[in-house]
């Protein structure tokens, strides 16, 4: 073996022991005939191997042809017997790469996989883009028209809304007391409210007349967005149920607030009929407001009824002899049957329709309940709420083009979305039909879980933006039932006192003569607490801290709690963030101290009122 060969063996088996630094240099210096040099050069060039590998291949091919020439073969014959240069280069490249180090092969495989993945993703993206932009929703049900049909059949003379609307237009804004509650008759600055409410007599008379009408009679109108971005788009949501406009709700609340003031005024002036008429009007207004039981309408109904119950308790307490026995009984009967057959409740039925309506407007329909989110659907969703979970670039056309296919892929398909909604809806309905003390709040938890995951928030959009507001609503009727039951006990106790000359010693004394049954404390399901004190009866529930404090008010005030804190037990916090250690006292009603400390701006506004009334 020559020294060169020995060197080769020593330096690395199989590596060419050549002085040339590159394959081209080696080829040039080999002195092969032109045809063979060209052939080798062509093969080497096409192999696109690493320089060192090329050098090795070059050395071997040159050696091969030199052997052939030495064996008297001519260059053309050798070139011909070599075979196809292109194929040789391809095979040599493939075979040589197999000899490369493991790390390189792993890297190459990863790179290849990555590139394939990118290509697949891109292909999927392109397919998805086409799908998303070509797909169109198929709107089959006009839910708004469906809901309006029975309303349209109500005779004009039976409709209350036109009269409420007229009353609302006549009502002047009531004086604002900033963060303070309104003063009651005899309290400081009551005179401002008094002179205001006297001026509203005509409007309030109209409102009471409206409340006597058998039906609300307000047809739903839509128009969610001022300038819908997709005016010719079948997926627009401004014509859907979620786009229904409810300006009447603020009118109804305005009227109820002013009826409340008017009741204080009437009671202070011994006008029992007007006071009772106002409370009864408010009860009817609640019914009217939720003629179509959209959740927000139901909530306003509860709020108006809450005013009515508060008024009843307050008038009873401050003017115990104002109402006649008959009026007390009438009020008790009306409060006992609040909500008719459904009772004090919220209905999620329209919200269910609302989601179905949205789904039919944003998804395609494959005829078997499934479909995918369309481009117009995503854009439509962008218009219905704070799009916190969706990138704001969707506002831009380019951003829409780029992200819509991705969003359509991420957001659940029609079938999955519908199924998820049905599942949440069933949980909400179950909670809504369960007393507070048995409520599991599963709907709340399910919605919270969905909302806490950014991916799920996007995946179940729009459920994730609509459901949180809906889920907790099941608690509100329960709280109002407790207040109503407190009012019923207070009415019964007052009737008992009038009839017998003394307060009943216990609830049992009022059942069944004055109360059909013992009312339950919504917090623990036990009987509502009743304690007779020298000042009269105290009617209370244990409240969110879940223990009986003997009818003591929470140290921090009324103990009003946030809905999230309704069942937190000892950890329950009030709206002021402080612990609620005490009971929920329903009667006698608690009135926050009237501080009447105003900001400069509030003071200036009140001054204007005073000037105007003087």
């Amino acid at each position: 073996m020559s020294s060169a060969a020995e060197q080769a063996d020593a330096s690395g088996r199989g590596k060419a022991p050549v002085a040339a630094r590159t394959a081209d240099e080696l080829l040039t210096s080999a002195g092969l005939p032109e045809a063979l040099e060209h052939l080798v050069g062509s093969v080497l060039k096409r192999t696109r191997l690493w320089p060192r590998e090329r050098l090795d291949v070059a050395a071997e091919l040159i050696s091969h042809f030199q052997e052939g020439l030495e064996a008297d073969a001519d260059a053309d014959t050798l070139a011909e017997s070599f075979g196809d240069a292109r194929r040789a280069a391809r095979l040599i490249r493939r075979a040589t790469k197999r000899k490369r180090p493991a790390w390189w092969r792993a890297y190459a495989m990863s790179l290849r996989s990555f590139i394939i993945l990118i290509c697949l993703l891109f292909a999927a993206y392109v397919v998805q883009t086409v799908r998303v932009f070509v797909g169109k929703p198929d709107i089959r049900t006009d839910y708004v028209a469906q809901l309006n049909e029975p309303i349209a059949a109500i005779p004009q003379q039976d409709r209350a809304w036109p009269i409420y609307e007229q009353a609302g237009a006549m009502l002047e804004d009531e004086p604002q007391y900033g963060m303070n509650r309104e003063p009651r008759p005899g309290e400081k600055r009551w005179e401002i409210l008094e002179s205001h409410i006297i001026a509203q007599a005509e409007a309030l008379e109209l409102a009471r007349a409206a409340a006597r009408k058998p039906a609300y009679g307000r047809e739903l109108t839509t128009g969610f967005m001022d300038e819908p971005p997709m005016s010719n788009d079948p997926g627009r949501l401004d014509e859907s149920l979620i786009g229904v406009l409810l300006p009447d709700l603020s009118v109804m609340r305005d009227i109820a607030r002013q009826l409340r003031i008017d009741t204080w005024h009437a009671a202070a002036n011994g006008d029992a009929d007007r006071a009772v008429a106002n409370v009864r009007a408010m009860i009817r207004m609640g019914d009217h407001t939720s003629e179509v039981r959209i959740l927000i309408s139901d909530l306003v109904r509860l709020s108006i009824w809450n005013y009515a119950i508060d008024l009843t308790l307050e008038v009873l307490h401050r003017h115990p002899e104002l109402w006649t026995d008959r009026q007390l009984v009438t009020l008790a009967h009306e409060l006992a049957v609040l909500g008719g057959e459904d009772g004090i409740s919220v209905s999620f039925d329209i919200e269910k329709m609302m989601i179905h309506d949205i789904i039919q407007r944003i998804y395609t329909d494959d005829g078997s309940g499934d479909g995918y989110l369309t481009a117009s659907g995503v854009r439509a969703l962008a218009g219905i709420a704070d799009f916190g979970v969706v990138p704001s670039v969707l506002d831009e056309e380019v951003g829409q083009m780029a992200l819509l296919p991705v969003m359509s892929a991420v957001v659940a398909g029609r079938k999955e979305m519908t199924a998820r909604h049905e599942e949440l809806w069933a949980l909400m309905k179950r909670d809504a039909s369960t007393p507070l003390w048995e409520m599991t709040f599963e709907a709340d938890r399910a919605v919270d879980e969905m909302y806490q995951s950014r991916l799920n928030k996007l995946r179940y959009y729009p459920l994730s933006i609509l459901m949180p507001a809906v889920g907790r609503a099941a608690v509100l009727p329960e709280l109002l039932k407790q207040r109503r039951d407190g009012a019923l006990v207070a009415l019964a106790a007052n009737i008992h006192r009038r009839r017998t000359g003394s307060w009943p010693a216990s609830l049992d004394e009022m059942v069944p003569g004055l109360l059909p049954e013992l009312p339950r404390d919504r917090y623990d399901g036990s009987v509502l607490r009743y304690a007779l004190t020298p000042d009269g009866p105290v009617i209370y529930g244990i409240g969110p801290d879940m223990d009986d404090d003997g009818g003591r008010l929470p140290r921090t005030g009324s103990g009003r709690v946030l809905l999230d804190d309704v069942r937190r037990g000892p950890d329950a916090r009030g709206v002021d963030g402080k612990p609620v250690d005490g009971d929920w006292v329903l009667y006698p009603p608690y009135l926050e101290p009237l501080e009447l400390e105003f900001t400069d701006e509030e003071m200036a506004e009140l001054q204007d009122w005073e000037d105007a009334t003087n």
Partner: protein
Amino acid sequence: MRVERELMRGAGPVAVLKLLTAGEKYGYELVDALARESDGVLAMGQSTLYPMLYNLEAKGLIESRWSRADSGRRRKYYRITDRGAKRLATDSRQWQALARAMASLGVLEGGAATGTNTLGGAIA
């Protein structure tokens, strides 16, 4: 007679491994031996042979070394490895089974090849 590429793809590596059992050989020598000892049946162009050698080397069935001939020319010699020898033994048995099967079907007349050259010994 030229052998179809698909057949050659299976036969070529076995033939090369068999040739190398007689001792190490360089590329040109292998081309020449394949053509000569198989009566041209297994003759293959260098465009096929060298990639095949690189593949066998990548699989560890053969190994190479550079050496300088008496003429002073550098040559890359290939020799069979232990692994290659095992593979050759396995492949040989398969080829023999195949040949017997083809013979029993009458595809091979007069039984398997009985040549006495290097390749015949491998394939028979």
